[in-house]
């Protein structure tokens, strides 16, 4: 058991070790001027310094909060409208062409306009983040509902489920594997938007703002700490949230 765990840790860590070694070699050979290209150990050092003095936690928390609030709002609308479009064909025929047009537009493209509507601040960022997350969730929910085997819907109706109860118990859970995919994709899109949005704003001190500021002050080591933090948070959210749901829920759909 213990031996296995050890092996697992090594297996997970060694690609990172390789990455650090290659990074160090590039740094030592001065492929780029060292000033623009800080070495890994220096960056790791700054990383822990910022972690322990609380500043990194603060920036990350703000970005996470913006993402989570915006994404939650976008996801709720996405699921609700996606379920409705999946059930009501008239609504679907109306809304689908519109969404096909808007879907490819990156959320951040709306930000300048949104800033005019809401002013610089959390509202604008959260709205844009929500918008970015919304479409993936909406689309996947819609496809999920359309893929529900009709036997489940008929079984629900025969059991006497009506309206909201039928939507909640059969349509929502029937479409859940697709909804989950939509949530994952949407969350990724929301993250991208939040970082870009914070880069453009001056008063929301999240990771995006921190990266941008480090750039302006030529603190490239701090900049890299910010960039790496985005990766680490993404990894943690995936492992602690999405993977957990996957293990607990999605396995129920596996056919035996």
């Amino acid at each position: 058991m213990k031996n296995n765990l050890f092996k697992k840790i090594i297996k997970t860590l060694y690609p990172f070790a390789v990455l650090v070694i290659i990074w160090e070699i590039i740094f030592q050979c001065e492929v780029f001027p060292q000033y623009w290209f800080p070495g890994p150990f220096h960056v790791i050092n700054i990383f822990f310094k910022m972690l322990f003095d609380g500043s990194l936690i603060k920036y990350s928390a703000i970005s996470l909060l913006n993402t989570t609030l915006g994404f939650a709002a976008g996801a709720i609308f996405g699921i609700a409208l996606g379920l409705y479009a999946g059930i009501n064909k008239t609504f679907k025929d109306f809304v689908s062409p519109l969404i096909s047009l808007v879907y490819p537009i990156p959320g951040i493209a709306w930000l300048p306009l949104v800033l005019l509507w809401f002013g610089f601040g959390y509202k604008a960022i959260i709205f844009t983040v929500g918008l970015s997350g919304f479409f993936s969730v909406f689309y996947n929910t819609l496809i999920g509902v359309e893929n529900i085997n009709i036997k489940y819907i008929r079984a629900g109706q025969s059991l006497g489920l009506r309206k909201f109860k039928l939507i909640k118990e059969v349509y929502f859970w029937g479409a859940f594997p697709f909804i989950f995919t939509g949530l994952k994709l949407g969350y990724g899109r929301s993250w991208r938007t939040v970082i870009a949005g914070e880069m453009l704003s001056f008063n929301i001190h999240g990771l995006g703002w921190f990266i941008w500021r480090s750039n302006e002050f030529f603190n490239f080591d701090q900049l890299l700490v910010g960039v790496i933090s985005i990766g680490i948070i993404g990894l943690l959210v995936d492992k602690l949230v999405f993977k957990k749901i996957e293990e607990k829920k999605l396995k129920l759909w596996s056919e035996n």
Partner: protein
Amino acid sequence: MNTILNLNKVKKNFVINGKKETVLDINLNVNKGEFVTILGPSGCGKTTLINLIAGFIKPDEGRVTFYDRKISGPHPDRNVVFQEYAVFPWRTVLENVKLGLESKNITKDEQESLAKKYLRLVGLEDVANMYPFELSGGMKQRVAIARTLATDPKILLMDEPFGSLDAQRREILQDELLKIYEKTKKTVIFVTHNIEESIYLGKRLIVLKPGKNSIKLDISINLPKSRDRTSERFRKIEKKVRQYLT
């Protein structure tokens, strides 16, 4: 006898390869407490018949009435056990059986004990907290039967429920179904394409064919309660039914 289900000059057409074809054309009365097996080749409108009675689809002509009222949609009084396993994979066995009880006007405890009662009836109380993906096909279908019975339907509609089981499990479930029928005295309409099954289960057997005047044969089966598939009388009926199937 009191008729509870009546199909009066009911017709259902489907467009097949651009041509309108009559799939079902039927007059039928079903009495309270009857166990009717419907036999026929695929494409003869067996499932269409179930769908009409369940209220999933509407007839193109004629009327389907249940307790003298026109059927306008699905209702727990006419609950269905489907051909494919329609238990919800996202709910445990117990939660599946409870679902139909949740919208009834009874307390949570009553829901729970009722659901457990029906799980006992199909011999599944031990797996109440398992999820469908952990069960065999036969067990899933027993969950579906328990779930359907739990809503206390006036008629039980079964659409080839044992079709995807192997022969042995099929026979076990047939015996269980007969026991449940004896206990609950439900009216049952059981669709199958298996001749032996239709004779073994049915008190009344109807053979359908595709197209106009769908009913080809409508007989009552006067065999003893516990039927012997190898008995001479059983085989004689089988021979007769077989003639009508060609």
